[in-house]
């Protein structure tokens, strides 16, 4: 997985490309959680993300909790249909702030 960090208006954008799975979830966790200490408004751009497994969902959940704890927000945007399906089957669609493609 490749993670690219950008700044957009008042938010920090993390563009994720590839797969968010058992082998790569720790990479996202290491980048995502500290970001909230710099700027509490975080956007995850999943335009080029193809795959999410439960290990990835757990990291998203940690991010969401951290966002709430610091009084910020975490938006997941440009999510492709197959990943939306995963969010739906696990109820994550209601937990996360998701914007589709």
């Amino acid at each position, binding site marked *: 997985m490749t993670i690219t960090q950008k700044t957009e208006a008042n938010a920090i954008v993390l563009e994720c490309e590839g797969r968010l*799975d058992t082998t790569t979830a720790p990479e996202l966790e290491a980048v995502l959680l500290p970001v909230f200490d710099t700027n509490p408004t975080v956007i995850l751009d999943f335009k080029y993300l193809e795959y999410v497994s*439960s290990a990835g*969902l757990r990291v998203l959940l940690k991010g969401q909790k951290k966002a709430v704890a610091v009084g910020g927000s975490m938006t997941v945007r440009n999510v492709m249909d197959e990943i939306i399906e995963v969010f739906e089957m696990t*109820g994550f669609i209601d937990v996360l702030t998701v914007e589709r493609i």
Partner: protein
Amino acid sequence: MSIIKVENLEKRFGDNIILHDVSCEIERGDIVSIIGPSGSGKSTFLRAINFLSPPTAGEVYFDGERVDKKNVNEVRRKMSMVFQNFGLFSHLTALQNLCAGPMKLLGKTKEQAEEKAYELLKTVGLTERANHYPHELSGGQKQRVAIARCLAMEPEVILFDEPTSALDPTMVGEVMAVIRNLSKTGLTLLIVTHEMSFAREVSSRVFYMDEGGIYESGAPEEIFSAPQKPKTQEFIYRIRSFNYDVASVDFDSFELLSGIDAFCFSHAVDGALAKKLRLIAEELVINIVVPKFKKCSLTVSFSDKIGRYEVTVAYPGSIENALDTAEDDLAAMMIRGTATQVEHKYEDEINTLKLSL
């Protein structure tokens, strides 16, 4: 008019009939992939078409003209062949390899030949290697030079006999990329290959060879997704199985997942389906079965009876459906959301979970 027409072609070596009564027509611009078991006569067929090893009976027509011993050289210039082992002149540089034929056979001057050669080396990404000798090139580079040399003769048809099978896996992609580009130029290509994903992606038609001929032919979707005849089905489905044994909790999960990716790629499994197979394997093996049972054996296979993919995970222990007792409810939820059917069996102290997609 078809660019190649084969009528009742027979090829025998002594009493051994390899090809029997083969007929087909290939249209200009067709990209034909030729697949089939080893020994089914794929190479023999290509070599018979261009008279490298002439048919023992039957006719081949090129652009309406019957091919025979007299016009075979002229025909071969328009229908050149790329071999598994490159066949470059080892004492000539890449550039010289590309110029030799056009100067000798097409009557080009050195300047004309070189100008064209540079242009072709550029299209295969090898401008920088123009003055290198074959032994100074990687396998993938050699094969790209061989393709460029073929193009230098300005052919109308190119025959490829397993152009990537002598290459390191890391170099297969660069050669396939070159062929993929060629497939968009209007040239007619016949490609013998074992790379099923590639065949499915680039070809307009697929010939499955078996039983001494073209046993079944059709569009790539027809042959790969819905083959009609028994031997084709057996060939397409038999190869669709992947096995991985996990011996301890410290197993290499990266190897498991990339193994599934490679399996899906080489068997042309549709992208969305490939992700589902991977997801089930990842959640079930890595997150549910191995943490609790330490060992398991995973099989991903295609069942032609039900026409669906199945993921089977077998693990030792007392009777227990790991999916029902999973502590990782998120993983279990994802599996249930993805599989269309889940079956648990217990036999000889082995639990087996079979999930269909």
